[in-house]
């Protein structure tokens, strides 16, 4: 965030934003967040990319930083593992909120709708890829399996192409 302006003025906030998010299915519990950080501490994406911070995203939504949130690439990084969801003491359901924010980003023209389509294809592909990789090693589950990930990926991709 170096170089960014360090002061946010409430004039640029949209107080309606939090109400809009919480009016959508999945966003209902947004506002009860008390910023404990459990979502962030358990997030596998945050572990890889510390700039990704679920607690901060919620805070930005609550403050009404509509433009910053919806234009941010952060809302696309969630891996939908539901760890945050499972551990949240206030039942905020961050994973669902991310889905709401993505929808809004499309609706409000921050991204092209094909991008969302693209993302869901990437999601489906990664699911299939995982399945293919599993199918490769499943037959050996009774043995001591050693894998070379790159090799496994190549084989899985080939299987996908063959289908």
């Amino acid at each position: 965030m170096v170089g960014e302006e360090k002061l946010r003025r409430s004039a640029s906030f949209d107080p309606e934003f939090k109400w809009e998010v919480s009016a959508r299915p999945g966003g209902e519990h947004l506002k009860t967040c008390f910023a404990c950080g459990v979502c962030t501490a358990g997030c596998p994406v945050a572990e890889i990319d510390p700039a990704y911070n679920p607690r901060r995203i919620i805070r930005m939504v609550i403050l009404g930083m509509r433009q910053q949130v919806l234009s941010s690439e952060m809302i696309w990084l969630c891996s939908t593992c539901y760890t945050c969801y499972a551990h949240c003491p206030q039942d905020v359901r961050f994973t669902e909120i991310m889905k709401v924010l993505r929808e809004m980003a499309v609706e409000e023209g921050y991204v092209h709708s094909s991008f969302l389509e693209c993302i869901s294809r990437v999601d489906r592909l990664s699911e299939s890829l995982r399945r293919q990789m599993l199918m490769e090693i499943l037959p050996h589950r009774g043995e001591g399996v050693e894998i070379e990930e790159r090799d496994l990926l190549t084989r899985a991709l080939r299987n996908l192409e063959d289908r």
Partner: protein
Amino acid sequence: MAEAARVPVGAVMVVGGGIAGLQAALDLAESGFYVYLVERSPSIGGMMARLDKTFPTNDCAMCILSPKLVECGRHLNIEVLTHSELVDLRGQPGDFTAVVRTAPRYVDPEKCTGCGDCEKECPVRVPNEYEGYLSQRRAIYRPFPQAFPNAYSIEKSSVPLCQAACPSGVHAQGYVALLAAGKYREAVALIKRDTPFPAICGRVCNHPCEANCKRGLVDEPVAIAALKRFLGDWEAATGEPIVPDPAPPNGKKVAVVGGGPAGLSCAFYLALRGYGVTVYEAAERPGGMMVLGIPAYRLPREVLDTEIEALRRLGVEIRCGVRVGEDITVEDLRRAGYDAYYLAVGAHGAARLGIPGEHLEGVISGVEFLRRVNLGQPVAVGERVAVIGGGNVAMDAARSALRLGAREVWVLYRRSRNEMPAAPWEREAAEAEGVRFEYLIAPLEVLGGDRVVGLRCQRMRLGAPDASGRRRPEPIPGQQLEMPFDTVIQAVGQAPHFAQLASSFGVPVDSRGWMKADVLTGATEVPGVFAGGDAVTGPRTLIEAIAAGKRAAESIHRYLEGRDLHEGRQLDPVPLVVGEVPRGIPRAPRARMPELPVAERVRSFAEVDRGLDEEAARAEAARCLACGVCASCYECERVCRAEAVRHQDRERVREIRVGAVVLCPGFDVLDARGLEEYGLGKYPDVVTSVQFERILSASGPYEGHVRRPSDGRVPRRIAFVQCVGSRDVRRGRTYCSAVCCMYAIKEAVIAKEHVGDLETTIFYMDMRAYGKDFEQYYRRAREEYGVRFVPAKVQRVTQGADGSLKVRFAPEEGEVTEEEFDLVVLSVGMAPEEGARRLAERLGIQLDEDGFPVSPGRDPVATSRPGVFVCGPFAGPKDIPETVVEASAAAAAAGAILAPARGQLVREKEYPPERPVEHDPPRIGVFVCHCGINIGGVVDVPQVAEYARSLPGVVYAEHNLYTCSQDTQQRIKELIAEYALNRVVVASCSPRTHEALFQETIREAGLNPHLFQMANIRDQCSWVHMAQPEQATAKAKDLVRMAVARAALLRPLREVSVPVTPSVLVIGGGPAGMTAALEVARQGFEVHLVEQRAELGGHLRQLGWTADGSDAEELCRHLVREVESNARIRVYLNSQVGRVEGFVGNFRSLIRDHRGHTREVEHGAIIVATGAVPASTDEYLCGSHPRVITQLELERRLRAGELDARRVVFIGCVGSREEGRPYCSRVCCIQTVKCALKLLEGDGRREVYLLYRDVRTYGLHEEAYRRARERGMVCIRYQEGSKPEVRAEEDALLVRCYDPILGHSIELEADLVVLGTGLDPAPGNRQLAQLLKVPLNQDGFFLEAHVKLRPVDFATDGVFVAGTAHAPKLLPEVIAQAKAAAARAVTVVSRTHIRAGGVVTTVNEARCTGCGTCESICQFGAIKVDPERQVARVEPALCKGCGACVAGCRCGAATLQGFTEEQIMAEVAAL
């Protein structure tokens, strides 16, 4: 008189014996009501008894609790019912009938001395719940050393499952436990209560105990039979049978017909009772089926003979080879003069298949075959033997045939393997030895001419189930076969063979030929003739026969004593309580006996199973899970010298009449095992805060050394995880548990005191240090102790490979972090007590969704059922002082409805007349206290006691684990009598907490209470010289020597009795004062209520709403109306108290109004309720900008409807928690949330921001905070060092603050800024404090006598405090405290007299010059110079015994009694 019926019952039931129950009980009992204190556990004391230290003063919880326990326990008008539960409540307020169920304690508390001998002998070890399961205790136990009653208690969860499964009720868990403890002799004796044959049963019993064993649910059942066999063999090896001494011969004779297990057992138990018993046995040797049916390879003959021989030694005559009815007639027996008969002749007839060829040579019945084999009679066995049948007899016959040389033995069974009745282990052994099994086959005909040559058989299959539930075999048409055999053994059942005998005794038989007798008692139709065993039941197991014999012995005994045969006996199986299967038990396979190799087995009748050796047996016994807890081994009973153990105790139900009920059953801690991410139960070094309290405690499992449970190492880094199960809407409780923040700080601080270089980190969300002096404690923890505070909720705890615990969290700024710790403490929250919840439902008490009672109106202690009150954490999470306040408030509430019955049921204490000892030479007794390890861990206490014995005047000295415990008090009294002691010295702790207790004790022993002296060897020796045990011991000796020297010169002091003025002065007319006044008046006493302003109401007049959102104005009007209309309350408006004279029970005060008019009033007690004032500030433009206002102003505008702001920014902690006002004002956060909710009501979308340091919406107020967020309140934390800034720019008001989550500053435009400014102490406090001679704390609020246990008292007797004069608090808390103060004041004014004097000044008039110095010195006005005689006179009731006058007296005329010059000099000279 009709009115008489309306007088309520002058007794109250208090349910729950924690600190709340103790306080409520004491207040009520001191106010003239009789109290039943009902406690579910074995001791009163509750959770507080488990705590180490208390915040914020770091007092030892047990040290301050223990005197209360004793006071309550010994109070004449408090009846403590432990192990008890209130189960039903009928009637109405003033006249309830309470039904109380008392579970058995199994120890008579009246007889038990608490000596602990039983505990040492008890072989059962179970996890100790008191110690947080970090250590073990015995089944007979006392929860903690200071417990009241100081009696042991036995925990029995049910009859152990093994014992319940045994037909004879053999105490299997008991002997297994004794075996594990190495107590073999006791184990054998225990077995013999229920069977005379341990070695036999250990070998051949079918052991249903094992099938029932709870260990089987973990891995495999305990090898109970093998253990019993070990014990039986051990007994045999001693060469002396172990039997109890029989009763002396009673001259009566019993004949037992049949020497099998039933007959011999009956004979054994009759012989023990003193009967002369003769057993008539038809066979040549005794034993019945044990010898005739069971082959020697299973039961060696010498084992049998040894155990039967034991009967002969008991005097039982066994006549073998005598057939009753043939060799001797029934008439012969009758002539021999037997008083009763027991027929136990067994079932020795053989059932037949009824197929052709059965008569052929080579066909024999199994029963007959085994009899011949076992008696060593010739029996021909061919090459190929068929055994028909699938029972144990078939197995025995087959295996015996093999041993007799048969080449092939076949077992033919008509059903499948699954239906076979033989014990699986028998079948497996037969298989191993080479017996061949053919299933689903039925013989149709024995083939042969005159000798057997084979069998023609039918193939079978299984059809539909028959009556026995087994599938009925049916022939498969056309499938028949012939098999060659030369011997056929028919083992298809046993039959009666005793028709003749039965009829000659006149005993009828049933259609199948079995004798008719009552199965329970064994009684037949014929008086005096009893029958049992197989002869009555048909063939059954060995242990059933033994059980029948044992029961018959009881019946015959009863019959011959002319008693009822059935009373108290039943055959119905004991209900089995399997309970939870304990977790975390390491799997361990059961022990197996070595066996003789098969090759050796089949050639001889040598015993197959070779038994367990001692080591294996003890290890196996240790696998027992002790499912019944108490094993019923009766060791405690054996060793108890007081004969206090009562294993036969039963539950009792009592109906008790009371006028009111106070419920304070306490709370449960949340079971954090459900929150798996924290690893409780998975990692041993993750503990709960309750466990950590025990780890810190000197009396805890590690004796006060801070260690990790896993390896005993001293931790270097400890993490505290806050909000475990609290403030969690999904997996715990939505509310805040109110106490965890403070106890975590305390635990961190104390832990650091224990371990020098310890690092402690507290992970929290909001640090809720909201109580009086809490914030300062929090600051000290941070700044002085270096406790680290991290504002983050822990996401999970995992364990690394090296055993360290990794704590993962996201700090507000910076990256997600994982830190390593050695120990993790989970601050678990409070949950409503489970049993209490059920109780509330039974009593019709309405609960809210969290499980807390709904309090109607604004009464914090009322419930939905009139006459039933609540207090303590059951009414909502809270800490100790608030609990104590509520307890007193509940006492006030109960007292208000029972006032007409005051004194109705109470008893007065009578002391024995005082022994005149004034002129006797001193005979001093010295008691030196270990105080657990508090003293004893440092000071060599036995050495100090030994030393004391050598001091002049000392005739007795001893040391005690706890000199203050109930049993030691009793002991001191006994020793005073035994040694004619006339002075007592206790070397223990502080006289401040314990002197009164010991004085009371010696008073009960007939000594003047002032003949007592204390030496404080805890505070002054063991505590301050912890690292120098030798010097500490030397100093302790010095202190004892000084105390003894002084004690020798002590003189009895007299007290005077002064009448009490039954009225109360209440200073302050706000909500606290009004409530207190009303409560005192309701209890029937006069009140003078003084208010300095022109109207009542105080601070309440400025509030719009109370914290729960209800109308404050309405409440104020209501209170004022009630006060003004109460005839017992006299209100003085525009008035102040000008002068206060006198002392507890007898005050005289001057009330002055604004016109200068004065009036003197007399009263017995004073309640200070002068309130606090809202703080003002000039920070954040307050006062200079119209749109920066305080909370009160916001409330005023809201109520007036003058608010048009859309964007509102609240700032918390304005001027609070910092220099100048270091305390937290407690109410501001909750007020903010309350106002925010009002602002966010409706649909006009306001923007509301809260800039906070910590949001302290403690306890159930958390819900309002959650609701405010839900409705849109945006909350941003700021740090003490970077406060928000407010500035005005043209017409804009801008608030700037740094948001740590965002990592930016933000600037909020506001229409209104609202400041939470807190409360200041009332300006008049200092003056009033001087007037009343009571202290203020450093902040200027009134300082109570003790922050934990005397929250509304002052050190000065008869003066009490309530409301915000004490500290900032919310309205319901103010009301509770006002009621509490009223209750405490009533304990004074409800008395007719007060004793005064004792330690007071006297003046030697001959020496006094009347100079008046003393008069000017005495701040209590207790000394005045008599103008006529010119000598000083002391008013003893006013004298506080401070001694200032003595120091000031120039002529040495003044002497303080109990502190005379000569006493002090003796003390000093002794040093």
